[in-house]
């Protein structure tokens, strides 16, 4: 994997909940591979809790080969929300709010053929402690898969193996230690727990 390309403001309901203006096109940003962690069932995942509110953003993840979608996952684009807000207000880049260790969590990737129906119509769900927090499908997004790839291609060199986080719907919110997370997207079903910081993080 060369990089993780992320779309922001690709779901109108999320932009509205953030009380921000909807741009003409979704915004693009990048997370380095060092932020990536593949989610394993029953995993315990540490986050930098001492750096302010960390928000979950659940997103369909595309794996690319020759600029085609050859795999799908469900991801969490984790964001230091308070820090991001300060940086945006100051007109500064906000990488440090988006690119920290374990800030790009992704379920194991499944092939497109593993989905029984059109994967862009298939709903994805994020539950925290048994409660549904986010639920949507890529068909509800402003830009769908083919358009996303064409859009990214105008700005970044796409490498085989690159992952694309396709944007988050409404329902983002803060996480805390001991939150139990369940992620579902068609044949993809995984769960894990966030834990308190420990020495060595």
């Amino acid at each position: 994997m060369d990089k993780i390309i992320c779309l922001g403001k690709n779901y109108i309901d999320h932009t509205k909940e953030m009380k921000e203006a909807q741009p003409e096109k979704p915004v693009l940003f990048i997370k380095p591979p060092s932020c990536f962690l593949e989610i394993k069932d029953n995993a315990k995942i540490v986050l930098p809790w001492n750096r302010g509110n960390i928000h979950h953003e659940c997103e369909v993840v595309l794996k690319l080969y020759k600029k085609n979608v050859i795999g799908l996952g469900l991801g969490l684009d984790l964001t230091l929300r308070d820090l991001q807000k300060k940086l945006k207000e100051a007109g500064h880049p906000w990488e440090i709010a988006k690119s920290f260790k374990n800030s790009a969590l992704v379920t194991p990737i499944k092939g497109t053929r593993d989905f029984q129906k059109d994967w862009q119509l298939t709903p994805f769900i994020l539950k925290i402690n048994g409660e549904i927090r986010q639920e949507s499908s890529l068909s509800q997004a402003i830009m769908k898969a083919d358009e996303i790839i064409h859009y990214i291609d105008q700005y970044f060199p796409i490498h085989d193996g690159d992952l694309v986080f396709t944007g988050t719907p409404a329902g983002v919110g803060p996480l805390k230690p001991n939150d139990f997370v369940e992620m579902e997207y068609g044949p993809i079903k995984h769960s894990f727990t966030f834990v308190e910081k420990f020495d060595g993080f």
Partner: protein
Amino acid sequence: MDSKKLSHDILNSIERLRIMHDLIKAQNFSAIPKDELVKDLDDELKKLREDFAKLLNQ
């Protein structure tokens, strides 16, 4: 070509071969047709051999 670049290219080839392996194992030719994937596989293995040969002769 320096060894750092060669190493980088070799690891990129291995990543692409892994993707091809996953597609072939799943018999998933919906995005990339089978004959195109087979050609990609031949080209990538050829490039991998050449790059390893260069790295060995550094």
